[in-house]
């Protein structure tokens, strides 16, 4: 599977740029770590399974904790630095981290639990609590006092399943609208979109008055990407993915609102002609955006990292904005999709109570000391004190690019929403492949939505 560099909250194959390296080095120095020696210098994409440098050097007598992460090169470097930091504290706990390719992560995790070889800690999305509940254990008995108050409420509540806590959130990340203001300026349109009318007129003008594509709704060849893009527009249109209670969810997007939203999505490459019905690699889309061949696109807060050149600088003359994606039509809520990279605690009868306690201590440390995750990774930390720390607020991402600050605003103002917590692997291509096909003009909207909804309902009913 080809990896995506800006789309996902997944493995990110961006090179370690100078700014990130400086950030990483600064954070490491600030916490007394001797340099960045522990950072894995991995390039590549999402990577094969590998043990990170953090896996060596535990003192005898330490409680050994195994941690599986799916992060790719850049995020893995940041997480590895955090683990090195934790291990360097010499607090009787030693963490061995292992990278698992994202595409195989869930399968390996389920298999590991089934065979009694699960790690103590594993990364996955916060919205997957119900799906992962059968293979993870609740951590309420192991959490430190007041742990709940340290995270943004929305992130904490998202991790509750049937009244118990199953994970700790590392970050809150979401998607919003990037605009290349040079393109917009040359088309003579205002880059401030508050409604669909203004946005669609701007797109039409860009197409008619410039050589650029106006707007890319999705391009990553993955059902997950289509799902996330669709859910932003659907929520603003007043629709839902599912209704009812967990355990008896009913698919809801095959109604009129869902169809109309899918129609709109499909028209971006169809009648509207704002984008071509082709998938590019994500890096190619970023290159188009930077080169002025693409006016606007929906992408994650962290995607800005990929705008920088090898010197850690933005291309000369690039003038871009990052704004809340609240231009879609409808009477729904002005909320955008969000997700949290989180730390879960897989079930393993071989794990002792001391190990479980140590695993939660490690997770609390990583989720509450992760300024690096913001300054170098581009994510809003889920711990409030970290998100609002001067280290984070002084970054270019907060002050100049406005990505993390916008995300912070959205979280603070209740303008983000997690996807439904279903018992099924809801991000699967099985359910959202038809949406990619609609975007590619390979299928009509009615057929695509119906196929998607039927497949999801069938899975929910199992």
């Amino acid at each position, binding site marked *: 599977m080809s990896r995506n560099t800006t789309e996902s909250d997944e493995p990110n194959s961006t090179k370690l740029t100078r700014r990130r390296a400086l950030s990483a080095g600064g954070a490491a120095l600030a916490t007394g770590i001797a340099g960045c020696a522990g950072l894995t210098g991995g390039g590549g994409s999402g990577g094969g399974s590998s043990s990170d440098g953090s896996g060596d050097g535990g003192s005898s007598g330490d409680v050994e904790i195994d941690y599986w992460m799916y992060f790719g090169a850049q995020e893995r470097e940041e997480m590895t630095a955090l683990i090195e930091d934790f291990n360097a504290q010499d607090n009787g706990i030693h963490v061995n981290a292992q990278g698992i390719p994202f595409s195989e992560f869930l399968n390996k995790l*389920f298999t590991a639990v*089934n065979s009694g070889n699960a790690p103590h800690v594993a990364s996955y999305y916060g919205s997957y609590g119900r799906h992962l509940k059968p293979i993870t254990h609740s951590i309420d008995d192991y959490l430190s006092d007041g742990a709940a108050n340290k995270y943004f409420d929305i992130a904490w509540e998202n991790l509750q399943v049937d009244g118990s806590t199953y994970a700790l959130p590392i970050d809150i990340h979401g998607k919003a609208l990037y605009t290349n203001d040079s393109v917009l300026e040359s088309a003579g349109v205002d880059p401030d979109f508050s409604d669909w009318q203004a946005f669609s007129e701007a797109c039409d003008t860009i197409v008619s008055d410039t050589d650029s594509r106006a707007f890319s709704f999705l391009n990553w060849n993955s059902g997950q990407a289509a799902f996330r893009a669709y859910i932003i527009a659907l929520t603003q249109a007043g629709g839902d993915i599912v209704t009812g209670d967990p355990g008896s969810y009913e698919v809801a997007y095959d109604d009129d609102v869902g169809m109309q939203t899918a129609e709109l999505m499909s028209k971006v490459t169809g009648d509207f002609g704002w984008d071509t*019905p*082709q*998938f*590019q690699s994500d890096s*190619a889309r970023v290159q188009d955006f930077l080169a002025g061949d693409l006016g606007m696109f929906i992408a994650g807060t962290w995607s800005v990292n990929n705008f920088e050149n090898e010197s850690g600088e933005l291309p000369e003359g690039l003038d871009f904005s990052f704004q809340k994606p609240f231009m879609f039509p409808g009477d729904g809520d002005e909320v955008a999709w969000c997700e949290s990279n989180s730390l879960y605690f897989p079930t393993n009868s071989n794990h002792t109570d001391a190990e479980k306690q140590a695993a939660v201590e490690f997770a609390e440390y990583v989720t509450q000391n992760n300024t690096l995750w913001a300054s170098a990774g581009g994510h809003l930390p889920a711990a409030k004190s970290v998100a609002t720390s001067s280290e984070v607020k002084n970054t270019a991402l907060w002050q100049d690019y406005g990505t993390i600050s916008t995300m912070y605003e959205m979280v603070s103002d209740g303008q983000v929403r997690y996807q439904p917590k279903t018992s099924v692997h809801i991000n699967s291509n099985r359910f959202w492949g038809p949406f990619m*096909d609609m975007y590619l003009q*390979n299928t009509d909207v009615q057929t695509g939505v119906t196929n998607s909804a039927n497949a999801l309902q069938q899975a929910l009913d199992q």
Partner: protein
Amino acid sequence: MSNVEATTDNRTASRWEQLFDRSTRELLVGLLFAAPYLVLFSVFLLYPLLKGLYMSLHEWNFLEPSKSTYVGLENYARLLEDPAFWNALWNTLEFVGMTVPLIVGVSLVLALGLNKELKGSRLLQFVYFSPYVLTVSVVGIVWAQMFAQGGVGTQYFGWLFSGSPLNSKFWAMPVIVVTTVWWQAGFYFAVLLAARQNVPERLYEAARLDGAGPWRMFRDITLPHMKNALLFVVIASTIFQFQVFGQPYLMTKGGPVGNTETLVYYLYELGFQTRELGFGAAVGYTLLLILVGVSVLNYVLVGGNDE
């Protein structure tokens, strides 16, 4: 050998002979020799095969197999009503229908062409065989890159399709077929070349003396003598192509519009995406039955009456 030892051996031999008659003794010795293979076969093939059958009759609980529910043939009944299964079966048949004739044709042409002692034929044999040593991962990723938007294949054949053919519901399957033929034809070429080289040259010389032309010699000498090899190529490649997974997984993820979702890909999704292992096992067993049927049909149609 001392007299005592000889007596002991005779006594042992007679006890062995007393216990078992000759045919049983031979059977036991044969089984003993075959035991290493039989153990591996039982552990890695027979057990999974029987376990798969057992699972296909249950709604399988992945995490707690003891809590699985027996559902009889319900999974098979569901399968017959599942449009995704029929779509996957159709796609698989389409893939096999395009790939097998192409593989047989290409490998036969290459084998006949390179049978001659031409300058550079050894090098060409190596070149044609070499793709086969690659893993499906390498082949899939390289060809997917070539035919991605902006890829060299997409650019080169831009006159044929607009944009990436892997995003086109018409072109995605043909590209996977071509990829597969490029990858595998080399192996079957080697098989057919070996078969062709076993045909006695004197037959051609005699035929030429009798005034037979190239087509007549091909029809009446080459083909009959290569029949068994061709039968092997057809059956082996058919069975192999029915199990296609890596190429669509790496190149198209079964899309667009499910047009390249094959049976094994569908099985994978059931097993590892939605974790419906009982239903997935039913799909697997259905595929097994299809393969047995196809093999028998191939044998009856293409050969099988050889003296």
